[in-house]
């Protein structure tokens, strides 16, 4: 049975287990129809031209975990930014782990999607925000159809989240192959501020395929910082759909650090629905082996006087493949838009591949839009300069690569996170020297 058929039939069972009075009951049944009609994307879809899911779809996945696993914090500590105080929302094989988590309802809501969907006090919010931003297309719809668990963050008007929030998805390998579909909803109302770190981590060599959807709503003057750390095992694949709606004067920035995983696809879509908005999309990708990382971004400028800044850096070694498909759409009404997009890549080995497709679609005349894309190598003369000053070649290369990625790192506002990523980069490029910032 193909994965699609399996999902469709298991949805019938899933549907029966649900409360028909749930605010999202109908949304789910509509969504499964969309998925049934569209199926999984193939290379024939323009947006999936360079990424094939075939190898993933062949596996026999368990759609729900049969056994509940418990983990000790000390065993998974390394996957947390543990040296600062944070709220944690942790899932093990898709199931919320209250033992590892620390949630709150004081002033702000940091809890699970499951409780938000089922508790009457959240009903109104869920009705207003759930599945309103995510585009109705196959993978989003599939996630919506099975939406049950994930992180729920609600920052009411005028509040600032006092601690960063970590969302960690762990998979234990209890099943031979696991298909996970977390669903996150982040609502930052007017004049709010929040920082979120998201991570998916597999703990065994069993296959994991995650199709995650995150909806982020940023109200007027809201300030949302979202960091995605993708450093999973080679057996784990991830499709991350993040859909963001912004209102007047809000600033949302998403940093994606892709170092691990088998096939990683990031769909990151911004919709600007107000004036003076700033959208920031940044990413560093360093991969090797047969890894495949695909960044598919969209910034939809709908209203005037807004800005967007995209900066994606990639270093590709061995037989890895990098894809960047960035799209900026400027609607007719979106005058005075300032959109900037840049994608720089370094190929380390001969069999590495880069496919880059930076696109602009512009319908307004009074705009400043530019994009740049480069593919090249480390500067030989810079390398020579460092070597001539007594820095070994390997370290010199590492320094240059670090400098290359630094424009993205420099805007990370959590020092502990920055340090962590710096270490990961150093490890990835195979040097032990610590970079101090």
């Amino acid at each position, binding site marked *: 049975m193909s994965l699609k058929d399996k999902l469709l039939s298991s949805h019938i069972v899933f549907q029966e287990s649900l409360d028909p009075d749930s605010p999202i009951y109908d949304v789910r049944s509509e969504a499964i129809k969309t998925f049934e009609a569209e199926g999984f994307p193939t290379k024939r879809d*323009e947006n999936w031209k360079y990424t094939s899911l075939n190898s993933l779809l062949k596996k026999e996945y368990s759609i729900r975990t049969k056994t509940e696993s418990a983990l000790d914090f000390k065993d998974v500590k390394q996957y947390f930014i543990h040296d600062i105080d944070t709220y944690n929302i942790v899932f093990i094989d898709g199931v919320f782990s209250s033992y590892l988590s620390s949630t709150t309802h004081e002033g702000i809501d940091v809890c699970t999607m499951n409780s938000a969907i089922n508790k009457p006090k959240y009903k109104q919010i869920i009705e207003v925000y759930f599945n309103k931003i995510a585009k109705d297309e196959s993978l989003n719809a599939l996630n919506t159809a099975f939406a049950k668990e994930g992180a729920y963050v609600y920052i009411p008007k005028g509040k600032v989240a006092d601690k960063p929030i970590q969302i960690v998805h762990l998979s234990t390998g209890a099943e031979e192959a696991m298909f996970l579909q977390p669903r996150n909803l982040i609502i930052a109302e007017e004049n709010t501020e929040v920082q979120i770190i998201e991570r998916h981590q597999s703990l065994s060599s069993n296959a994991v395929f995650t199709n995650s959807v995150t909806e982020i709503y940023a109200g007027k003057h809201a300030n949302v910082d979202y960091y995605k750390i993708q450093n999973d095992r080679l057996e784990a694949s991830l499709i991350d759909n993040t859909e963001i709606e912004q209102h007047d004067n809000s600033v949302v920035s998403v940093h994606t650090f892709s170092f691990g995983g088998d096939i990683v696809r990031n769909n990151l879509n911004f919709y600007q629905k107000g004036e003076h908005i700033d959208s920031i999309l940044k990413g560093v990708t360093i991969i090797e082996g047969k890894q495949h990382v695909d960044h598919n971004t969209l910034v939809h400028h709908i209203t005037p006087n807004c800005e967007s800044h995209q900066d994606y850096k990639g270093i590709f070694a061995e037989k890895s493949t990098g894809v960047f498909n960035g799209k900026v759409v400027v609607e*007719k009404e979106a*005058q005075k838009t300032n959109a900037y997009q840049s994608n720089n*890549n370094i*190929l*380390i*080995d*001969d*069999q*590495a*591949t*880069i*496919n*880059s*497709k*930076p*696109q*602009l*679609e*512009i*319908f*307004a*005349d*009074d*705009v*400043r*839009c*530019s*994009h*740049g*894309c*480069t*593919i*090249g*190598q480390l500067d030989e003369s810079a390398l020579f300069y460092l070597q001539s000053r007594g820095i070994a070649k390997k370290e010199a290369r590492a320094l240059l690569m670090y400098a290359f990625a630094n424009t993205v790192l420099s805007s990370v506002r959590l020092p502990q996170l920055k340090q962590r990523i710096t270490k990961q980069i150093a490890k990835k490029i195979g040097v032990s020297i610590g970079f101090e910032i």
Partner: protein
Amino acid sequence: MAYTEDDLREELKTKEYEYGFFTDIDSETFPVGLNEDIVRAISKKKEEPEWMTQWRLEAFRHWEKMEEPEWANVHYEKPDFQNISYYSAPKKKDKYQSLDEVDPELLETFKKLGISLDEQKKLAGVAVDIVMDSVSVATTFKDTLAEKGIIFCSISEAIKEHPELVRKYLGSVIPQRDNFYAALNSAVFSDGSFCYIPKGVRCPMELSTYFRINQGGTGQFERTLVIADKGSYVSYLEGCTAPSRDENQLHAACVELIALDDAEIKYSTVQNWYPGNSEGKGGVYNFVTKRGICENNAKISWTQVETGSAVTWKYPSCILKGDNSIGEFYSIAVTNNFQQADTGTKMVHIGKNTKSTIISKGISAGKSQNSYRGLVKINSGAANARNFSQCDSLLMGNECGAHTFPYIEAKNKTAQIEHEATTSKIGEDQIFYCNQRGIDTEKAIALIVNGFSKEVLNKLPMEFAVEAQKLLEISLEGSVG
């Protein structure tokens, strides 16, 4: 030639049963529709050898199985391929020795279009192979070229007189099944130009062809084949103007360039097909496949100025097969009113040390849509490949659109690729600066547009550059509020 029109008429009459259709010879236009019989009849009419007929039929069979592409960023009413006449020729079919013999009415049309044959002959030193509704009616300067061993003639003539060259190279760059329109063209191409430059010869003049669509309801399917043998050089000019028409006309041409070792081909186009009126009615559909292949140390340079057509779909490409080969693409695409253009290039790097440059300037005004779509592909064997792309768009008014769709695929670590695109409008400060110095706004715009396009205009041969500059001005007339 022994084979006369009468023979043909006779033959078609006798074949009538076999093919099941009727042709009115006097009108010289085939009945509408497309089937194997029409393909055969075209081939017959052109007095082509059997291998050519088979080649066309093969293309036709592929075409039948293909679907019209929909990926381009253009919207138009799909042509009904069974409602087009696939062959039309001016009534007089004899070859003329001098201009006096040419139908005066035809000459009058040329004059209206502002091209004086004799003037061009004298002043520009350009040999003009005029294609008037598909049949080559006048070729000049042939003798001069013949002295150097250069073959410059219509493709139908080449099929008859140089079959070995045509057979070897036709379809070698654009195979019959390449794409929907290339297949259609391969099946039904009526005429076009053929050019062969022998080893080590530098073509002494700019070769030029003028294509025109003149008869209502007939699509034009040109086929151009340019072969530059080892160490040769040729500059080829192609210019198009079309008189006003109310119904949509289809133009699906194929241009194949072959640059052998150390050869250089410069191919320049000024395209000004009828773009439709200001309400977007009428206009030519221009679906063109242009591609060149470069062997070792060869160079192909495409320069184009696109101002016409209701819908343009055109990607002059270079396959950099040989080591050290160079591909260039310089383009200005201007769209106004309801025009839609989806144009760009493909640079496929296969050989080592290959270089490509892409400079594309798009100007959109009125309610038009202008897209750049390009591919830069570095294969794994293309060590030290180098590409530089620059795509700038200029928007005039807020009802038009400018789009950029670059595809960059690199599979070699030594590749160096730079892509840069900007979109902006003419700055008020720029206009103000000009106004301040006594240049009115309309002139200022012309000046700025000219500056914006300079990089590309500079690449055009002198006499073309002047014409192109004028075209830009005319195309954008009244588009400034």
